[in-house]
């Protein structure tokens, strides 16, 4: 044995699966009749590299199949065959077959050779017939898209110093989408001489400010030998979330060459034949720059509230919305681009290694906290210097921890990228026309959260298409466009991540939900419920709106499971719905599962952590301001409502220091919409704590969401307020 190749298998599988994902994404963007040559190239390269890899490792079945596929793709690439719908479908089927083969080989299972042979036969047949005969090929094969963008790409070709004027008007949600103007401006500054004028006229009073909304706008002058593309590159990720005008003012005689947000597709495609492109998907996204869609304009108009609508050039089509236009032509589902992460400057690291690193850093933090505590009690000439050193250490530790934590953060596009294919297949199956819009896919989430949010999202999207969106004829009859929209969106909101699945379908059927809930005994026959309460019913265990379990959303999984999954991640799910207009499911998730901002409180000799987000206020009550309600415990008046008091020492069976309410403190907290006052001895301080699971070695305890390790090495329990409120309620009832 000269060389053991098995050690490379894992990397080969990882890379192949990733490559197949990008191949699938490229296939879904492929225009029937006039395919983008660069997309075909991308697809070809994937097949080629998988063929090479599998031959190297001796996976002959995969090599043989990909060889046939490669031949077909080569025909397409050379323009000897046309991309027709059957061919496109065949290519997608090939992706599935390759994936299945790779999975089987990876799991050391036998390959389903019958399926492979069937598809391979179809491929070879197609090659033999030089394309499926049923669709006549349009005259111009693979027309380069330059033509249509000729008007847009009017940047002067001459070199030399130029003066650029950039008008940058971010939308309110720019920050939430992970864009920071500061970063863009500092990048711009590297290009040439820059002067910046800020427009803060939209900045509201401090009290009215949304701390995460962007109110500022900028006019930037930039001078130097700068290509327009370089400026566009700076704003690349923000282009859907702002208004941008880039104007060149070299001299008076050139009529101000105005360009728009959307790059002319040609610029990206230049030299594509040879470029080993790592920005396949990004480039592909830009190449959708066809004439504007109604959606795109609508989005722009509605989003830029303070700006004159007329200022928006009509050619503008943000990448995410660009595909909308496409949908009007394609009869089936359409697929926006979701840029897979294709950074070349990255390495692949096993998650265990990162976790190990995190653990070690965690240990270091504790050691550091211990040292700090020691340092405080030191005296003598060296003490001050020692403490200064410790402070420095603490800062460095914090940075180290943040950096390690950030390694675990991944863009949600990893999850979103599976949807175009799913939506397309589902729409086909159900005979519906669906356009999938995706925004905010660069929003980053902790890897663990990311892994577990996929299934709930799949369920919601399925649900939207199956139950939410109507059939085309029904939609038309209702005066809606035949193509329904499902919109996936992710953004930062109040220190959390909000992921939304919105559709413009019929909305939830109140009557049917209520009837079903009544028939199941979930609601009494005479109970009167608000709309919100009715919508909430769908999250109850055992509730399913489908009249009968369908192939699509059946599977015995209901919304209750979705909610449970989301809850396990420390998140919440809500639904809003408007009859005839659509429904919107919002999942709110913590940024990371690993850290929580907490208030430490003491009860007797114990220390507990109360998540800061749940705390409304801490206060001391005066003797006599508390009433007892017969048999139900104590309440006191807080902001006009009676709030029940939970004595934590009673609930947890701890010997307290304070038994009289006025001797301790009341922490008003909120959980699942209910407010209670927790009675504790004292507040100790606020700190960020790293959550450790109790579950790993012990089990779940109601009222406790986890534990953390304090600076002195001792363990403190983290309170789960909904659990505590429930517990207290059952105690009161008992």
């Amino acid at each position, binding site marked *: 044995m000269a060389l053991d190749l098995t050690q490379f298998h894992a990397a080969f599988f990882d890379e192949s699966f990733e490559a197949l994902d990008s191949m699938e994404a490229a296939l879904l963007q492929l225009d029937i009749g006039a395919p983008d040559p660069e997309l075909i190239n991308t697809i070809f390269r994937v097949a080629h590299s998988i063929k090479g890899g599998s031959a190297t490792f001796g996976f002959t079945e995969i090599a043989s199949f990909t060889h046939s596929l490669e031949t077909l793709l080569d025909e397409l690439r050379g323009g000897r065959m046309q991309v027709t719908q059957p061919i496109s479908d065949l290519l997608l089927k090939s992706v599935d077959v390759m994936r299945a083969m790779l999975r089987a080989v990876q799991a050391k299972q036998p390959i389903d050779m019958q399926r492979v042979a069937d598809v391979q036969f179809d491929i070879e047949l197609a090659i033999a017939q030089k394309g499926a005969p049923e669709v006549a090929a349009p005259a111009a094969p693979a027309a380069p898209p330059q033509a249509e963008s000729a008007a847009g790409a009017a940047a002067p070709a001459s070199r030399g110093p130029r003066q650029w004027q950039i008008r940058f008007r971010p939308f309110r949600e720019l920050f939430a989408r992970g864009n920071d103007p500061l970063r863009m401006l500092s990048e711009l500054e590297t290009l040439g001489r820059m002067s910046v004028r800020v427009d803060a006229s939209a900045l509201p009073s401090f009290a009215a400010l949304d701390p995460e909304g962007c109110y500022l706008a900028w006019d930037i002058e930039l001078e130097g030998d700068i290509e327009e593309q370089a400026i566009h590159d700076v704003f690349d990720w923000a282009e859907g979330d702002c208004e941008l005008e880039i104007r060149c003012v070299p001299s008076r005689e050139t009529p101000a060459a105005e360009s728009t947000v959307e790059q002319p597709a040609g610029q990206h495609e230049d030299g594509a034949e040879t470029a080993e492109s790592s920005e396949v998907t990004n480039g592909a996204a830009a190449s959708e720059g066809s004439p504007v869609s109604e959606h795109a304009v609508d989005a722009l108009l509605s989003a830029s509230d303070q700006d004159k609508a007329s200022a928006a050039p009509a050619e503008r089509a943000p990448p995410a919305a660009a595909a909308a236009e496409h949908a009007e032509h394609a009869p089936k589902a359409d697929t926006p681009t979701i840029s897979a992460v294709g950074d070349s400057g990255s390495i692949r690291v096993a998650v265990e290694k990162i976790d190990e690193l995190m*653990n070690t850093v*965690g*240990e270091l933090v*504790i050691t550091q906290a211990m040292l700090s505590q020691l340092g405080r009690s030191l005296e003598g000439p060296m003490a001050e210097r020692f403490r200064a050193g410790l402070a420095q250490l603490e800062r460095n530790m914090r940075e180290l921890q943040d950096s390690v934590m950030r390694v675990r953060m991944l863009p949600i596009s990893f999850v979103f990228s599976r949807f175009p294919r799913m939506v397309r297949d589902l729409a086909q199956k159900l005979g519906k026309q669906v356009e999938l819009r995706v925004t905010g896919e660069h929003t980053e989430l902790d890897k663990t959260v990311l892994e577990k949010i996929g299934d709930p999202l799949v369920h919601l999207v399925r649900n939207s298409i199956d139950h939410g969106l109507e059939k085309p004829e029904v939609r038309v009859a209702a005066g809606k466009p035949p193509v329904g929209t499902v919109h996936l969106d992710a953004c930062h909101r109040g220190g959390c991540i909000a992921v939304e699945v919105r559709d413009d379908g019929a909305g939830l059927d109140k009557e049917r939900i209520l009837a079903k809930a009544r028939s199941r005994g979930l609601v009494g026959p005479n109970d009167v419920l608000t709309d919100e309460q009715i919508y909430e019913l769908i999250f109850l265990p055992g509730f399913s709106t489908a009249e009968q379990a369908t192939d699509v959303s059946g599977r015995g999984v209901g919304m209750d499971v979705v909610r449970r999954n989301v809850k396990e991640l420390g998140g919440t799910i809500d639904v809003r719905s408007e009859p005839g207009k659509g429904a919107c499911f919002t999942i709110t998730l913590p940024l990371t599962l690993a850290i929580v901002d907490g208030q430490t409180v003491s009860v007797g000799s*114990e220390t507990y952590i109360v998540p800061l987000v749940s705390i409304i206020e801490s206060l001391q009550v005066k003797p006599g301001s508390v009433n007892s309600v017969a048999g139900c415990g104590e309440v006191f008046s807080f902001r006009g409502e009676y709030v029940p008091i939970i004595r934590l020492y009673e*609930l*947890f*069976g*701890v010997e307290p220091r304070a038994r009289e309410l006025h001797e301790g403190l009341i922490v008003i907290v909120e959980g699942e919409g209910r407010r209670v006052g927790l009675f504790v001895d004292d507040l100790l301080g606020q700190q960020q704590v790293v959550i*450790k*699971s*109790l579950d*790993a*070695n*012990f*089990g*779940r*305890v*109601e*009222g*406790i969401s986890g*534990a953390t*390790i304090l600076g002195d*090495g*001792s*363990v*403190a*329990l983290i309170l789960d307020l909904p659990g505590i409120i429930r517990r207290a309620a059952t105690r009161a009832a008992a």
Partner: protein
Amino acid sequence: MTAIATQTPAADAQHDPKARQATEQFLTFRLAGEEYGVTILRVQGIQGWDRVTPIPNTPDYILGVINLRGAIVPIVDLRKRFGLAAGEFGPTTVVIVVKVQAQRHDRTIGLVVDAVSDVCNVGAEDLKPAPNFGDGIRTDFIQGLATVEGRMVILLDIDRLISEGVLGSMPGAAS
């Protein structure tokens, strides 16, 4: 934080295949005057007794949790678990950290015992099944009784002892 011993001598047992087949090594400890043993292969370390963080609404034999090198580890008071008379925690009181194989995954837990005595070899032929003590006395977590140098040692099956019912969702919390 007074670690007395953390190295398991398991490696020795594995060097001698014959020994591994015929005899098993047990860590023995004292509890209310009786001597018990657990297989050394499961012992992860021995720690001095230190303060624990109590967990509300758990059975009394769950004393709480400690921080064991960054992991949250529950501590079981074996006296209480066996219904023996409660004893004062003294200088010899130690926590034996063991690995328990549970249905879903392995867990690490600490057992509070009066004192650690010895590591002894028990041959298969020295192992006697636990006698039937009659109704009401559980013996299912006793792997067997062994005689070591004239003393009787009760060998525990810790997987049974710390089954899912003992940890996990607590009776108080489950309902």
